[in-house]
């Protein structure tokens, strides 16, 4: 598949790869929210982590991704966009923006959906850990 330059750039130089600890550690850290979405047999799994400061802003984000070039680029881009945003601003990121930014081909749109799911899952995890009420975060089931 011939990909656009931005996908290739994120694929070859993925931003913010990593984790804020082992699976056990990040589960216990209340300042970290983790979103793990996808499934190995579907060919893509994204793990997105956000680190939230005292003011409720996302000060850092990291990802790991098992998936195609578009999935890697989508999750890499998501971490870039999340840094410095509030939780609400994070929730406002839409998959269509990712599609547009990366010029994802139609067969790869599900990668952007997965990235949006990962963002929502990470924020939901952080809120749950910290007892923050979630207003309406379940409308995106698919």
């Amino acid at each position: 598949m011939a990909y656009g330059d931005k996908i290739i750039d994120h694929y070859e130089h993925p931003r913010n790869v990593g984790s804020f600890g082992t699976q056990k550690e990040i589960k216990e850290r209340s300042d970290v929210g983790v979103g793990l979405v996808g499934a190995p047999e579907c060919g893509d799994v994204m793990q997105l982590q956000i680190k939230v400061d005292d003011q409720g802003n996302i000060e850092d984000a990291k990802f790991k991704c098992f998936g195609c070039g578009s999935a890697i680029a989508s999750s890499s881009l998501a971490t870039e966009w999340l840094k410095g945003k509030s939780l609400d601003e994070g929730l406002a990121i839409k998959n269509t923006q990712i599609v547009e930014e990366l010029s994802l081909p139609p067969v790869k749109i599900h990668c952007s959906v997965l990235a949006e799911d990962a963002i929502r899952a990470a924020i939901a995890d952080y809120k749950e850990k910290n007892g923050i009420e979630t207003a309406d975060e379940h409308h995106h089931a698919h």
Partner: protein
Amino acid sequence: MSVKLPIYLDNAATTRTDPRVVEAMLPAFNDVYGNPGSRNHRYGWESEDLVDTARRQVASLIGADRKEVIFTSGSTESNNLAIKGAASMYAKKPAGQTGRGHIITAAHEHKAVLDPCKRLTKEGFDVTILDPPADGVITAAMIKDAMREDTILVTIMWANNEIGTINEVPEIGALCHERGVIFHTDATQWVGKMPTNVSTDNVDLLSLSAHKMYGPMGVGALYVRRRRPRVRLTAMIEGGGQERGMRSGTLNVPGIVGLGKACEICAHEMDSENERLHKLRVKLEQGITGKLDHVQINGHADKRLPHLTNISYGFVEGESMMMAIKEIAVSSGSACTSASLEPSYVLKSLGIGDDLAHSSLRMSLGRWTTEAEIDYVIDKVVVAVKKLRELSPLYDMHNEGIDLSKVQWAAH
């Protein structure tokens, strides 16, 4: 030693036409351009002579008589003609009825075998599709167990196109002859690479393609046994009655000449080429498996073609792997560039999990593959897998002792 990029390791998809083959074909374009069916002039006679020479060259490579070689457009057509043509000819009941006869094949056959078989199920035939064992090798014992009173045709490929495993063709053929059942083998990946003798290997119908053995695309042949038993087929393409009435249409003379020359070269060079490619394949496999954990070579350890290897890389995904080794032309076990995200049905039929099937690469070596290329490929693959595992949440989880099969994945 420097290598020319990209490196071509997809010889099971198609091979470069050998320059000696191209050379041999040129007169059939430039000088001898008659229709071999024209019986009244020199142009026709000379064309017929070229075709006749090619027919002998093909026959000689597979131990057949030249009268047993039917030229086609390639293996897909040969398979269709063999399977549908034999089923129709040996049907126990006329069209429109059920119970017309039983056919045996296997789940990891090429689509050019499976789809004709599926069509026959709609036309009143019963088809048994055997599940291959984990090593991918179909044995005569498996065929014997599947045989019925009304079995009319067994179609089992000689060597598998994705994993290179070799089925027990001579033994299956002997069993079929004992039972009076017609035996067809799709030998597309086998002929020209491995010694073939349709007599001692007990084959009744054999499909082959020129472009898998350094000949041109668009030409192939079907071997049709003439004695013990004399195999008859219902033609699929009707018209001028060429090829003993089994395949009408003006012969593709340049292509046929190319096929013949390709067969002649393979016959001469097969032994030394096999030895050379086998050494390179072993080097490739050992280089990769020696430097990476969680990799598996698919298919039987020894009963495999010398030039082909299919390796699954745990915890990395196929397409991103292909991107990481874009300087190497290979084939992926995953069709994930399509919307379907379906991993290879061949690997799945061996019981390989979807996750590993997604991350499998077939590398097939050929006449121009060099040791310097193999060294380059080993390095590239190892670096790519390590890079992608750095990125892979699955590799982390696995290394932390999490059983990935027990995780509640949100399938999408």
